[in-house]
């Protein structure tokens, strides 16, 4: 079919343009960016609910940790976190090394983050605002304890229609940036293999410490 046949007159072209012009804002509206707070809320509720119901006292192996990590994957992008925390070093890793690192770093974060919210299970978490800048968003929350309020922000990236967390900022201190600076020094002195060893050691320490703490509570 010839194009000339379909677009017969200038007025048709004009009409098509008009439709296009009219349609653009409508299309823009229908594909609005999803609301990060609305996506974050049910997730946080789910996590705190699991924590509140968990039988932490008899869970020295931290089976709840695995469950929480599995669920957290729906909102936490551990791949993105690993990429950011390593910076330039990430690009030098092989595919397999990358996968290993993500698993290891996820395990570390499970203690850093899960441990943190575990202390506050049952305390109220308030959503205090959000900020969107292109494909990134910050969802602000406050952990309210009896005598103080701890601001916790989730930094998110829009992937498809889902906002995924790639950094957690507690009282202005970014977890990823803090680890990034520590890792950088280790990478400089001991290279990547040294870093992996150190993270493995730290995870082991945290596991043992947790098991001991729970054993003490059981007595």
């Amino acid at each position, binding site marked *: 079919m010839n194009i000339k046949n379909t677009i017969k007159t200038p007025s048709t072209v004009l009409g098509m343009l008009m439709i296009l012009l009219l349609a653009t804002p409508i299309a823009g509206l229908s594909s609005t960016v999803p609301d990060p707070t609305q996506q974050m809320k049910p997730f946080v509720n789910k996590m705190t609910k699991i924590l509140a119901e968990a039988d932490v006292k008899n869970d020295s192996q931290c089976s709840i940790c695995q469950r929480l990590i599995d669920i957290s994957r729906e909102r936490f992008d551990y791949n993105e976190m690993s990429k*950011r925390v390593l*910076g*330039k070093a990430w690009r030098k890793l092989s595919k397999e090394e990358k996968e290993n690192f993500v698993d290891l770093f996820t395990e570390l974060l499970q*203690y*850093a983050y899960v*441990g*943190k919210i575990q202390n506050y299970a049952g305390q109220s978490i308030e959503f*205090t605002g959000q*900020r969107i*800048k*292109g494909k*990134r*968003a*910050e969802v602000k929350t*406050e952990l309210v304890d*009896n*005598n*103080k*309020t701890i*601001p916790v*922000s989730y*930094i998110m990236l829009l992937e498809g229609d889902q906002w995924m967390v790639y*950094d957690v*900022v507690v*009282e*202005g*201190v*970014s977890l*990823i*940036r*803090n*680890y*990034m*600076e*520590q*890792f*950088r*020094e*280790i990478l400089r002195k001991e290279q990547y293999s040294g870093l992996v060893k*150190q*993270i493995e050691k*730290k995870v082991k*320490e*945290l596991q043992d*410490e947790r098991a001991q703490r729970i054993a003490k509570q059981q007595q």
Partner: protein
Amino acid sequence: MRHYSRSISLFFVVCGLLFTLAQPCFSADGDAVDFLSDDFYEDETASIETDDPLESFNRAMFQLNDTTYTYVFNPVAEGYSKVVPPDIRGVVWNFFRNLEEPVRFINCLLQGRISDAGTVFVRFLINTTGGVAGLGNPAGREFGFKRVEATLGETMATWGIGDGLYLVVPFYGPSTLRDFTGTVIDGFGMTPYYTFTDDLGVMAGIYLGKETNKLSMSLGEYEEFKKLSFDPYVALRNGYFQYRKKLRDHSVPNDGE
């Protein structure tokens, strides 16, 4: 007052000397960091690493502080927290904070933050009267006047004075040359509870009481932080600069009343 006023002036002379010596001033308070700008993570040249020429000294001081914290300050604060209920500790904290408000007011003015200065002024008025000499915080709780932070260190920063260098101060913690100088002047020069007395022992007592009370409200946090760090020294240094940046970002109001 005479015998230690000499040591104070000596301190300033030393600070002055260090300022001139520490020429390559790094600027840790450049533009406010926006977590939503990506370059922050990918740009290796925009490093978050800070100039730390005194690292070996600082590490030694960090170790000293860590030890005294673990064996002295923390047990004391823990004991204190068992005796004094949380709401009383909150009241003590309010009281000291309120006494420091005039210092913040002056610093706000010196930084040209006129509206913040107004907030501090109103908070001081309300809390001193309605809050019974600053024991309560009705300005924050009832009237929504949020806390304002302003120190001489920040004032000097707005005037273009660089940090000098990162400094871990014995028995005090992470700071920078500029900020710690500011802290000392803020403390000695303007804070009223030190001028009530000229007995160094009483002053130290007040300071220790205030700090013990403050610490009793965040017990266990330092241990938790240390447990999760690979190099607590680096982690604290990084955390200090990040936290300070947040305190000095006045585009967003303070969290908490």
